[in-house]
């Protein structure tokens, strides 16, 4: 296996939102793992993908343990901004525009963090909390269901 193959595997993992890949054969073993604070702002967290990413959008999830970071003692626990509706998640008001928020963005309750489109209606979703975005959990243009975590926020003290 050469660097080209490894890059191809990483690409496939990213495209299919796979977080861990392991391959073992004669005298050779490779393990690739994408961290929860991956380089890709649009990476989906473990909970959203079943171990077998099937052809459907929402394959019934097996109870996968999320990769939890040991809590940093001096900071309040992160909270999720969850989807209040079913639709398609967009990070920006239009395809050419900048995303509403990114990792590191400060938000307050009225900040629009994303758009969820349902039946041709673009719904602006507000943060409803004060804090800083630590993760973007859904890829742009992907469908979301009710209650699905969209962003991780470190709330302001």
């Amino acid at each position, binding site marked *: 296996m050469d660097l080209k193959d490894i890059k191809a595997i990483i690409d496939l993992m990213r495209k299919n939102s796979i977080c861990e890949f392991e391959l073992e054969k004669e005298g050779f073993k490779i393990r690739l793992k994408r961290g929860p604070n991956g380089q890709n702002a649009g990476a989906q967290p473990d909970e959203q993908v079943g171990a077998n990413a099937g052809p*459907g959008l929402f*394959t019934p999830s097996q109870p996968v343990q999320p990769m939890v970071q040991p809590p940093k003692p001096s900071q309040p626990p992160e909270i999720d901004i969850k989807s209040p*509706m079913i639709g398609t998640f967009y990070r920006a008001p239009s395809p050419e525009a900048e995303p509403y928020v990114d990792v590191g963005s400060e938000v307050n309750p009225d900040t629009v963090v994303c758009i969820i489109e349902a*039946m041709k209606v673009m719904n602006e979703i507000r943060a409803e909390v004060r804090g800083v975005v630590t993760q973007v959990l859904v890829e742009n243009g992907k469908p979301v*269901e009710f209650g699905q975590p969209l962003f991780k926020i470190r709330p302001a003290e």
Partner: protein
Amino acid sequence: MPWTFRNAPSSSDTLMFEKILIANRGEIAVRIIRTCKEMGIKTVAVYSEADADSMHVQMADEAICIGPPPSSESYLRIDRLISAAEIADVDAIHPGYGFLSENSHFSEICEKCNIRFIGPSSRAMEALRDKAVSRALARKAGVPVPPGSEGTVESEEEALSVAKKIGYPVLIKAVAGGGGRGMRIAHNDISLKKCYHTARTEAETCFGNSGVYVERYFENPHHIEFQIIADTRGNIIHLGERDCSIQRRHQKLIEETPSPLIENKYKDLRKKMGRAAIKIIELAQYNSAGTVEFIVDDNGNFYFLEVNKRIQVEHPITEEVTGIDIIKQQILIAMGEPLKISQGDVHPRGHAIECRINAEDPYDDFRPSPGRIEMYYQPGGRGVRVDSHVYSGYSIPAMYDSLIGKLISYGRDRREAIDRMSRALGEYLIAGIKTTVQFEQNILQDPDFRRGVYSTGFVDQLLRRGSQ
């Protein structure tokens, strides 16, 4: 006589379904998914947060959470169902029973969004939109209806004059009522005056529609219904009757086919009632599966009650004696296929009984008994069918209905079906919650039930005897 096609244009073309969304939960969602799998159609389950561990979610190819536990915030949310249907890119929605299955607004929105609704068109639903309108349509079709008012009664005086004409006792019924609710019995003018006003208020509060009508009250009639299937090209058949007289507070407990009353006493009723059912369906230009309900008195007189515009809980017994998958027929019809079964092809054979198993305590006034099923073992063997969504370790949520399964037995004759049902009920092992299994067994053992001599007063009489 096939009439010219009058349904919405979108349903006139034949469309192969690749994916169906099931807008329901529990055992019926599992039932629908099973037929879809057999037909090679992909399935999308929707669920509230309380149903994340439910069987239909696990069985479907995809599952989408549509809201918090309350039905009003999930299974009844048309906007969320349509959004889910859109993002999952489904061809059709099966509404099951209850929830939005008879909601013409939902049927219409599906039509507008180019999603096929597996059920009657919104027009057909409108033609049978409430009990009073359906009564009038039945009359027009020449089918006997219980003596009563022409349509709704708009005043106390009108109610009194109708009662005077038809004679007491009378029923004041909410036009939008259902499940045995929204009915009051009046035995004379004084009670009628009182009932009329309370009935109207109650109807407004419970059903959002204060319309009421007046009908003769039959004491302990027999409840006999006919399953019909109609395509979108005017072909209509009936699949025989179901006797659903074993009820408690107007909730069915046990259903069977054929009806012992018809088999033993009034065999010619089957043809007459079947024809009447078809006439009503034809006049309403109804399509998909439906059930025409009648009441029959002890003298063999039958009267139309209403049409249930959906697949029904007790459909399995008809499937067992006819060999026809009714859900599959619904799907084919929604695809635009013509009905390939003619009336002459329908030959019910043998006898089938269904017992509804509810998570209720029969010894505590049937109080619901939600909670975790610690251990579950369901009956099996020859001639036994279980339609259920529960399993060992499953927690029954408290906010939906208490039906946890349906036990169906089939036999070559009624005796065999009863013995088999009794045997099967005895095999049930459900630990952790209370169920009605033993109560059903008591009914099965009752001599009158076994003789096939019972009416809608049966369960009350049994309960009264038991408490003495």
